């Protein structure tokens, strides 16, 4: 929940964003690609005006001639001007690509919209058709249909467009499924807008950007495939095309090897510009999204003076911990925290307050890009973790510091049986033999209250329930008999009925092993249940620390008060609260 805010956004979940054109035009890569494309398209369109020669006029002295002497790029196998033919060929090749793209767009986007919006029977039919088309070896099928379609390459490109449509279909369908139940679409439906208008106004807007990106790729594919067909001789020999020119160059490859370069480079340049333009648009979208999701600049938070325990007995001493990300976001600002041996410390705060980042810092497992800033210090049992090399730090993980994650299902490797995931660390970390590790894993599973340890041991993660999975993860966390257990919202993702059992298990294990525990939670109920002390975190800072009972009885910081009040009202404070900082 407290992931950094700079996660890249895939093409699949691009949000609605108006005015895409302007930021794209500020991207140098996009400008370059657009410029090259415009030159190629314009030169092709204006071929009759700018071409120095007719594409069909022959000069016998220029057969396979090198550049110069009236022909800018030399002559082809029949003595025609290569440069003029390149220009004229651009019209035919680009037209073919445009045809394939239009057909693919029309079919794919329409079927994707219908499929995603209405689902059901229609979705089944379209999905099946898409799978069918995707299994086709396109080149072979186009060759096989060549006679049926006649010698016009444009009909082949229509057929190719049909074969390309599943790409758009899948993209659009996925996007529509994702936004279909967004509130603003529901609102539009409730307010009586007709389906076509909802699709047109709200949904098309969402799919627009990814479709443009995909279109740039598809146009490139169409150019390459069309050129391939013409290279094989499937085309009208009377019309110049880039593929046809390559065929001519291939026939004369021994006498004039240079001639393969001109059409080849033109194709490569055109296709590369298309792909780069698509990439640039994607980059721009990702950047605008990630910058807009960045948290608003936090108000300065007034923290109460921390109650610190400067005796040497603290197992974990965090001083002045700050965590930053390359985007410039600082998510934790100078946190001081102590966890004594055998005590349970609750770290409380709402989403985005930095408590999970603090926990990951102790483990040394911050998400990519996350770094400790300045004079951050994390002392564990007297050793300074912040400056410990990774391989020495790893020795502590599992053996001396255990970790219980929040989401049980996503924290088990779906490819491995539950038992293997317990056995592997036991062997690697504790150095047990295979047999001993299996016995130990089974007894751990039994200890955490799994009714049939052998069955769960042999099950895959998707075959067990969330509550069972969380018990498995707890078993894994305590398997190295750690001194410190870091539990990140260990009950949040579980059913209410299971939550109490898991908390009780944690408390039992904690007393049994005499572990210290850093419990990250947003829930004061959990804190009251299990914690000795509590630290309240807001906007990356600790605002109040104290023993649980006094703090519950007399919260001094306004933020703690409002958190407590919202808990008493039985609503979990998962959203940002408006607190008067003054």
């Amino acid at each position: 929940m407290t992931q950094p805010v700079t996660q890249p956004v895939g093409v699949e979940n691009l949000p609605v964003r108006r005015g895409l054109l302007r930021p794209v035009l500020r991207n140098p890569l996009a400008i370059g690609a657009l410029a090259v494309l415009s030159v190629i398209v314009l030169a092709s369109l204006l071929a009759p005006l700018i071409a120095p020669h007719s594409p069909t006029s022959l000069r016998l002295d220029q057969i396979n001639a090198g550049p110069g002497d009236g022909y800018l790029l030399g002559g082809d196998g029949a003595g025609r001007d290569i440069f003029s033919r390149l220009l004229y060929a651009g019209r035919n090749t680009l037209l073919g690509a445009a045809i394939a793209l239009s057909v693919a767009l029309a079919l794919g986007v329409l079927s994707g919209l219908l499929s995603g919006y209405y689902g059901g029977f229609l979705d089944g039919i379209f999905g099946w058709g898409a799978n069918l088309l995707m299994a086709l070896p396109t080149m072979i099928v186009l060759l096989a249909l060549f006679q049926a379609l006649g010698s016009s390459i444009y009909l082949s490109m229509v057929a190719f467009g049909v074969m390309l449509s599943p790409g758009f279909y899948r993209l659009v369908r996925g996007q529509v499924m994702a936004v279909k139940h967004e509130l603003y679409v529901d609102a539009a439906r409730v307010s009586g807008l007709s389906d076509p208008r909802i699709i047109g106004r709200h949904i098309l807007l969402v799919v627009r950007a990814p479709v443009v990106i995909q279109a740039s790729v598809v146009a490139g594919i169409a150019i390459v495939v069309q050129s391939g067909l013409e290279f094989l001789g499937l085309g009208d020999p009377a019309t110049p095309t880039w593929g046809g020119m390559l065929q001519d160059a291939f026939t004369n490859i021994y006498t004039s090897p240079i001639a393969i370069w001109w059409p080849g480079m033109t194709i490569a340049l055109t296709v590369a510009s298309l792909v780069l333009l698509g990439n640039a648009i994607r980059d721009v979208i990702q950047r605008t999204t990630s910058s807009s999701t960045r948290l608003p600049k936090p108000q300065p938070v007034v923290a109460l003076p921390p109650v610190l325990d400067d005796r040497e007995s603290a197992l974990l001493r965090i001083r002045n911990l700050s965590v930053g990300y390359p985007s410039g976001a600082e998510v934790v600002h100078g946190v001081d925290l102590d966890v004594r041996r055998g005590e349970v410390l609750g770290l409380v705060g709402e989403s985005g307050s930095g408590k999970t980042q603090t926990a990951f810092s102790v483990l040394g497992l911050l998400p990519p890009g996350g770094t400790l800033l300045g004079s951050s210090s994390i002392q564990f049992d007297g050793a300074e973790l912040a400056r410990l090399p990774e391989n020495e730090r790893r020795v502590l993980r599992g053996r001396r510091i255990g970790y219980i994650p929040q989401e049980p299902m996503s924290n088990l490797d779906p490819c491995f049986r539950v038992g293997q995931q317990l056995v592997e660390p036991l062997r690697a970390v504790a150095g047990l033999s295979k047999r001993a590790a299996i016995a130990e894993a089974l007894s751990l599973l039994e200890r955490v209250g799994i009714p049939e340890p052998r069955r769960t041991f042999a099950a895959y993660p998707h075959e067990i329930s969330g509550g069972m999975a969380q018990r498995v993860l707890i078993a894994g966390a305590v398997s190295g008999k750690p001194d410190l257990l870091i539990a990140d919202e260990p009950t949040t993702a579980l059913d209410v009925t299971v939550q109490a059992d898991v908390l009780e298990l944690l408390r039992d294990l904690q007393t049994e092993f005499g572990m210290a525990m850093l419990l990250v939670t947003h829930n004061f109920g959990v804190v009251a249940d299990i914690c000795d002390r509590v630290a309240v975190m807001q906007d990356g800072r600790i605002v109040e620390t104290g023993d649980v009972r006094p703090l519950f009885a007399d919260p001094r910081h306004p933020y703690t008060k409002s958190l407590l009040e919202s808990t008493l009202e039985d609503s979990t404070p998962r959203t940002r609260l408006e607190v008067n900082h003054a």
Partner: protein
Amino acid sequence: MIGFVGRRLMACAVLVVMIAVVTFLLAFSATGNVARNLLGENATADQLAAKNAELGLDQPLLAQLGSWAGHALRGDLGISWFTNEPVSQAIANRLPVTLSMVVLAVACTALISVCLGVAAAVRGGWLDRSIQVLSVLGFALPNFWVALVLVVFFSVSLGVLPATGYVRLSESPGGWASALVLPVASLVIGSTASAAQQVRGAVIDVLRQDFVRTLRARGLSPRSVLFRHALRNAASPALTVLSLQFIALLGGAVVIEKVFAIPGLGTLTINAALQGDVPVLMGVVVTLVVLVVIVNLAIDVVSGWVNPKVRVR
């Protein structure tokens, strides 16, 4: 697992039948000029009618389809209209040539793209950036043009590798290998560029998953997390990429065969397409679709074996 394979097999059979029927109807609907092409401009109307009757083209389209399907089920794909060679035999002679090219290309693509993709995902930096650039290049350069450039460089200029021809493995393994170097290389350059990019994406996706952090929190080394867990999880998307590359390479091989004058399925198809030899084209399409379906099925089974969660879907 058996139920999973059974369901897939059924879907595959339906797919093959659908494609065969659609291709047949399209291809056989345009056979009006075949008799004239075969008999020449001077043939009389009677001769044309007789030829059409001989080829069965005077029958209704659906009757032709029924007769073709009946024979095809027994492995008889008809007889070429132009060479009178049985289609099954023509395909059986040429398929090994094309397959040896494509299988080699897929194997090289898999090996190189997994190494590059994993390295780019883990290391980042310049390697990562060069793979991004290479993937654009690999996409933008048509493989037949790459083949032409290779021919110009290695055969015309340097003269170290043969520009054309094919030698059977049984005749001379050395000759077979040197005849395949350039064709396979021109296929591999493009497919590796795009596959490496996708392997990189798949590995990065897996490394971001929660369970990777949890495994590391248990004290496992990054090496064991990467090679045991991340690679196994990235295997099913990577296998899907490879199966798509296989289909693409089959198509690519057609054009490449033309450049290197390799007597494979591609050359057979191109000649048949230019002549309008519909039985040969039907045979090739059906054979390749069956091949693609078998490969996809095999990939599905391997995916299900590597990642049991896939089986449930």
